């Protein structure tokens, strides 16, 4: 007898419908699975057999053939255990087929018949909902992440027996309750606050601008000057996630399996800091199954590269295209997928190999050549994509007699939120949401400067030897500074301030 069930697979961050067809015939007892399936699906045979037996159902001693359609797409992962098991039960007349037909079934089985948590539930549910499917059976462990999707019926089950009982109408499984995203958003706490960072006013101001406009930042300074601390405090001033943004990020994290099952959705902007030994694949994503990499996991959040020149040159250069386009396409033998990678890059580095160049407390022992070589590890095109270069220094603030009365992050965040609101209004008809992602046409439209400013900018260019590519960057940053000041026009002080954050273009570095 033949049974057909619905389930879902993932290609990148989008789901597609898969049909599980189970046919049981007379013949030599055996189990055959076809449809371009991966090893973990092939291995499911033993899990399913044990789970069915241990759940007190009959495993048919007949010829079982399972097909997963479409047969030309590679399928991976253990999430098809439950649909195949239910399919076998249907085909062997232990469960009526018409009871299962309307459901999309997902779940991994344990040998004792428990249904285990699987990765990628969130993007699957979102895609399935868009395709008009409404009833789902998912593992109990994935209940939380499913709870943010309204308008569909989701039934979490913890065992195979419970699933069968529910389908037969014998057991009552409550639907997943829909949670409001806003309720959990405000429960998040901040560990690193700007009020704990003394001094560093330039850096704080620059990070405020970066948070408001989504600009990339490079922090340069000697060891122990607080670069990492500033970077870690940066998420505390980032604007709140919108629900759509949160879903987008959670989808990626769900695929990567890094989603916290207690929360079920990301409520904070991600802050990823891969170690400098990270390979190209670790950053961009890839591998046999084209999994998302660090830059995609940092989507809508921050990618922090501590000690940037220590990273492999190849790894850094691969960031160039995603920094410009906000997406990365990964092509592998078995899959070609596109992951979003729209992140704010925060990088930190020492000014020279010994780290003390420009330090007021320690002497630098590097020759000019060594310093040039060190800075030369970062290629020009990559540096051009970084809008704000900030020097962080380890001045002894007690000497400067500054009161330890620093502005807390929440105050800064209020200003950032206001500036971001202006941008959301400005870009409501286009796909981007921040000044840093403006294209040439938008720059011409929104970054108009008067003739005096133009003259000033040209003068600054000649004097400071700025690169022509830096021109648009300066205009974008100036736009954000004007937004922070609530000014509809870009004025000369905004342009001046924007230029002041290009310190690496300054001559003493070369």
């Amino acid at each position, binding site marked *: 007898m033949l049974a057909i069930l619905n389930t879902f697979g993932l290609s990148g961050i989008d789901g597609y419908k898969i049909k599980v067809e189970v046919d049981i015939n007379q013949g030599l007892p055996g189990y055959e699975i076809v449809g371009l399936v991966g090893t973990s699906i092939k291995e499911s045979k033993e899990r399913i057999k044990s789970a069915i037996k241990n759940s007190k159902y009959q495993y048919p001693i007949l010829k079982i053939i399972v097909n997963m359609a479409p047969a030309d797409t590679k399928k991976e992962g253990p999430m098809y255990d439950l649909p195949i098991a239910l399919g076998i039960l249907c085909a062997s007349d232990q469960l009526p087929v018409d009871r299962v037909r309307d459901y999309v079934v997902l779940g991994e089985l344990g040998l004792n018949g428990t249904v285990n948590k699987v990765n990628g539930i969130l993007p699957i549910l979102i895609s399935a909902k868009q395709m008009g499917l409404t009833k789902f059976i998912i593992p109990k462990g994935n209940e939380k992440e499913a709870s943010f999707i309204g308008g569909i019926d989701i039934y979490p089950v913890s065992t195979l027996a419970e699933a069968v009982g529910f389908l037969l109408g014998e057991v009552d499984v409550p639907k997943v309750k829909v949670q409001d995203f806003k309720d959990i958003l405000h429960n998040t706490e901040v560990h690193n606050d700007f009020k704990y960072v003394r*001094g560093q*006013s*330039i850096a*704080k*101001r620059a990070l405020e601008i970066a948070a408001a406009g989504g600009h990339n930042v490079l922090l340069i300074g000697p060891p122990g000057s607080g670069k990492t601390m500033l970077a870690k405090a940066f998420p505390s001033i980032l604007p709140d996630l919108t629900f759509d943004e949160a879903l987008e990020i959670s989808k990626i994290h769900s695929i990567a399996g890094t989603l916290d099952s207690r929360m079920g959705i990301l409520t904070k902007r991600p802050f990823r800091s891969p170690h400098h030994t990270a390979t190209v694949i670790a950053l961009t994503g890839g591998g046999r199954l084209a999994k998302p990499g660090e830059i995609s996991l940092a989507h809508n959040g921050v990618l922090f590269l501590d000690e940037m020149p220590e990273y492999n040159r190849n790894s850094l250069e691969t960031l160039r295209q995603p920094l410009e386009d906000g997406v990365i396409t990964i092509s592998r033998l078995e899959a070609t997928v596109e992951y979003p990678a729209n992140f704010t890059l925060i990088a930190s580095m020492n*000014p020279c190999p010994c780290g003390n*160049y*420009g*330090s*007021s407390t320690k*002497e630098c022992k590097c*020759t*000019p*050549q060594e310093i*040039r070589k060190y800075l030369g590890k970062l290629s020009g095109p990559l540096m051009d994509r970084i809008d704000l270069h900030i*020097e962080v*220094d380890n*001045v002894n*603030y007690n000497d*400067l*007699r*500054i009161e330890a009365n620093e502005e807390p992050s929440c105050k800064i965040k209020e200003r950032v939120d206001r500036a971001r609101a202006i941008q959301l209004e400005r870009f409501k008809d286009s796909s981007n949401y921040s000044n840093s992602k403006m294209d040439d046409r938008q720059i011409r439209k929104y970054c108009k400067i008067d003739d005096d400013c133009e003259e*000033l900018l040209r*003068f*600054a260019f000649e*004097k400071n030897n700025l690169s022509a590519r830096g021109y648009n960057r300066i205009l974008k940053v100036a736009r954000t*500074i004007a937004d*922070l*000041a609530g000014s509809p026009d870009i004025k*000369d*002080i*905004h342009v*001046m*301030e924007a*230029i*002041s*954050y290009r*310190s690496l273009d*300054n001559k*003493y570095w070369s």
Partner: protein
Amino acid sequence: MRTLNNQERAILGICSQTSLSLGKIKTLIYNLPDLSTIFAGNLSNIPIVRQTLTENDIIELNNIDERRLDAFIRHLAKQNIEIVTFISDIYPKNLKEIHSAPVLLYAKGNLDLLSNSSNLAVVGTRRCTNYGREVTTSFVKDLVKHDICIVSGLADGVDAIAHEAALANGGKTIAVIGSGFNNIYPSINTALSEQIIKKGGLLLSEYEPGEKPNSYHFPARNRIVAALSMALLLVEAPERRGALITKEYAMEFNREVFVVPGRITDYCSKGCNDVIQLCQGTMVLSPKQILDYYGKTVVDFDKPKDVAQLSLEEEMILQILGVNDLHYEAILVSSGMSSGNLNALLMKMELKNLIKKLPGNIYTSVKI
């Protein structure tokens, strides 16, 4: 390339294909009526040769390959490299005075500068501070306006700044390098060396074009820098560094030594201050002193900056800065401005050349 006469050709042959010392070559030059006889063989018959040279030397001389020599000359000509020998008319007179004058110089660029008499050597540390940079730039600027040719060693730091400042102000400059022309050291200055040739300066080297920079080349190069000049200007020098070696040579060759004083706490000024303390050089406070020494009448120095056009805010910042270098946070506290506005203001003042930003968020008012 100028054509070489037989004598010069012989010198080039000896220098490029044997390992004879400077002294031996000079003895040959002074005592042999025609140097090209070395190509004829049977050198051992000449008494003076037997007295000065060892057997090995004579074998080396006999082995000079004339075809290889001619190929080398063509090779030099192709690269526009000139040969200036000890016996040539254009060999600098200043240089000839010294005992250890090189018998052969490779030259590239404007050969007229060889006969220039008002040369000034400008030397200092490779790792100069902002002070060294400013002093070098402003001194060289005024000096080249009075037709003084700047001689230096094309190293990092003060050397490169001196060459750059000379070219930027339309002046003449001679760079004496411690390696072959094809191996400029540090390599980053290759572009500068090309600028020097293009803008009417001169590149000199004792070494064949392919020679690598060896550490012992540089003190030797310094003797040429000192000898070529009438006087030497020492800008910033830590203790026991190359710049002080050049100063020793200058004193040995009886050249005037001018020293720019520095703060007693500065590492980079230690050497300079020591020289002043030991009365080994004249302390200079302005380029005028040097110009007086060269017998130049001083004309059109830049007028002091016009201070009338400053805005109130700019004046406040200058007042806060005073004569000190101040950290950004200190300026921020004293001015009471917001961080953003202060950044914009400081940038504007930097563009107006009123202040300067140093590494480590330190600001300083532009004094010179």
